[in-house]
């Protein structure tokens, strides 16, 4: 019963995140909202798995947590460089600085 | 190469914890996935002392517990700002210097600051960090000194 209430609360929080994603005003606000939405989705998957007595949902939650992270990094990289082919760091410069 | 056995052991244990299967077919598939991961890691060339901090594991656990306490305190502070009136928040950009020598220590410091609600690392340049903080009075450059000391002690082995 408590878990069902928790799932409902998470859905409310997710709806608020969608509101921020629609309102913006900048791209960064939208991506922040989507990233936070993803974290709440992970929690919702875990809670719903317990509500239905199927903890296999947790595997999906793990995968979703990883996808959420990669999505945010890829979006940020794209907005910064306007391309996904750009290396995130320059290996030659890194070696020169560290070595 | 000295860190390879530890990595293989960790990957195998991780695979078993996620699957819990013992049938020969599944064990074979698990071994294959471990090998695939090892190939990817070898291509990335990231298996070095910084990426395998086993020698610092106990200190890291102690630091993690301390960090959880800090996160709890910061959570309470930020929730009060969320519920309070809008003009109660007073954000500020702080320049913080990290005393950690290794890049591992700097990464832990920057991520700890970001993980603590109310402070976000915006920019890292060498040992200079630019931090955006939600509350001016509790976020002077000196207020990051305890965390900096602990991170330096954890990652580099200095005195805490």
């Amino acid at each position, binding site marked *: *019963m*408590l*878990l069902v*209430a*928790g799932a409902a*609360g*998470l859905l*409310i*929080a*997710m709806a*608020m*995140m969608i*509101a*921020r994603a629609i309102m*913006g*005003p*900048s791209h*960064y*606000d939208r991506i*922040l909202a989507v*990233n936070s939405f993803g*974290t709440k989705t*992970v*929690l919702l998957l*875990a*809670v719903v798995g*317990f509500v239905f007595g199927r903890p296999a949902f*947790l595997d999906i939650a*793990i995968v979703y947590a990883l996808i959420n*992270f990669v999505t945010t*990094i890829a979006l*940020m990289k794209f*907005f*910064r460089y306007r391309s996904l082919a750009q290396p995130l760091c320059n290996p030659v410069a890194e070696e020169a600085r560290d070595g | 190469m000295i860190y390879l056995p530890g990595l293989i052991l960790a990957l195998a244990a991780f695979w078993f*914890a996620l699957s*819990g299967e013992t049938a020969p077919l599944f064990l074979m598939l698990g071994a294959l996935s471990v090998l695939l991961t090892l190939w990817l890691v070898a291509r990335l060339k990231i298996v070095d002392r910084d990426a395998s901090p086993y020698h610092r594991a106990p200190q890291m656990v102690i630091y993690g517990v301390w960090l959880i306490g800090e*996160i*709890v305190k910061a*959570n309470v502070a*930020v*929730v009060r700002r*969320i*519920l309070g009136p*809008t*003009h109660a*928040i*007073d*954000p*500020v950009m702080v320049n913080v210097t990290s005393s950690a020598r290794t890049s591992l220590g700097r990464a832990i410091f*920057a991520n700890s600051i*970001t993980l603590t*609600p*109310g402070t*976000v*690392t*915006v*920019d890292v340049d060498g040992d200079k960090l630019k931090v*955006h903080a*939600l509350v*001016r009075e509790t976020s002077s450059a000196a207020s990051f000194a305890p965390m900096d000391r602990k991170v330096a002690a954890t990652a580099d082995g200095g005195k805490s």
Partner: protein
Amino acid sequence: MGDVLSWAGGGLVIVGVALSVLGAVGVLRFPDFYTRIHAASITDTGGASLVLLGLCLIAGLSLVTLKLVFVWVFVMLTTPVAANALANAAFSSGHKPRIGAFQIVRTDERRKTPRGTDQP
């Protein structure tokens, strides 16, 4: 005993969800992008930790608990990196934070910058 643990776990889940909702309220209320990151990190740290800890209490000791711990570790490792990437991308592309004294600055700035013009 098991009953007490599952009630305590349910209570922790509710508290964690309440923190998530509070974080969402903050994301809606706070005046600029950089302050909204702080509100979002409430959900990522406090909310996620309490919900997963509550589920751990309900699950008891098993592989399921271990998986919950993995989810927690992933969330704790990835969210600061994502938040840092966001803040750094915004800052280095010239998205200016509105430091201090929001109530006064905010209304004029709203009029000066039309919607969606602060992209890199």
